[in-house]
């Protein structure tokens, strides 16, 4: 009986969902970066939307319901529409394939190797809290934290958005005086 309960209320089903969403996220991310069929930026943008949506599925599995919603609204909604607008506006041609220079190849491999070594080192030393996850999708607690302990950063971020808006308007004016 307990096993069936476990199966229904998470447990194995959650694990399967994790693998599905993780595979989907990584596959779409690969297609964003190196699509073998098309080099057009529009294809990359559409696959980035898919990546973000499947990543919000991962957020749901991590019980971060509010962030999953925000991820879809802000990234898949606002940011990607902005990207597509700019792609259409610029009327970009397909990126042609080119030969990779030896120096670029070495620099790339070295930088990726450094990142890999940092990651392996940090992953070996990570221990999650002994108690295991007990947090249950606390959107209420998140809001409370945001408006009590993190009020100042919240206000600063709103000013940052205002500054970005003014900057974008200034940048896209026809003539800068």
């Amino acid at each position: 009986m307990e096993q069936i309960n476990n199966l229904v209320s998470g447990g194995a089903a959650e694990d399967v969902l994790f693998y599905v969403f993780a595979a989907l996220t990584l596959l779409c991310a690969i297609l964003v970066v190196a699509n073998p069929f098309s080099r057009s930026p529009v294809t990359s943008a559409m696959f980035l939307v898919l990546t973000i949506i499947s990543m919000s599925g991962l957020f749901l599995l991590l019980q971060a319901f509010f962030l999953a919603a925000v991820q879809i609204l802000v990234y898949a909604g606002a940011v990607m529409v902005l990207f597509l607008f700019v792609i259409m506006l610029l009327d970009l041609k397909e990126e042609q394939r080119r030969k990779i220079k030896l120096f670029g190849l070495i620099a790339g491999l070295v930088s990726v190797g450094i990142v890999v070594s940092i990651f392996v080192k940090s992953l070996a030393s990570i221990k999650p809290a002994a108690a295991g996850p007990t947090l249950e999708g606390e959107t209420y607690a998140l809001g409370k934290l945001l408006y009590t302990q993190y009020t100042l950063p919240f206000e600063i971020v709103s000013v940052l958005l205002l500054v970005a808006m003014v900057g974008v308007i200034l940048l896209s004016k026809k003539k800068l005086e």
Partner: protein
Amino acid sequence: MNVGLHHYLFVSFMLFSLGLLGVILRRNLLVIYMSLELMLNSANLALVSFSRFNNKLDGQVLVFFIITVAAAEVAVGLALIVALYRKRQSAHVEDLTSMKL
């Protein structure tokens, strides 16, 4: 085998390296920008999973701020790219060499 912190961190790391690879390999300014978004998102995933497995909500608050800042950053960056395109008629990094020594 139960899915734990390490699984999520592995996915996050793979996403980060894919983004890094895109920044290095691709030559289109917009696609490079999308790869940067990928890297930001991988950091978000790592933060959310840390917050879940350590029972602290502060990580999620940080992700909230990162998403806001990323939205502002995308707006400014795309405006810069459009301004650059107006001046140079190109969005390929190979054509933008005026700062090369």
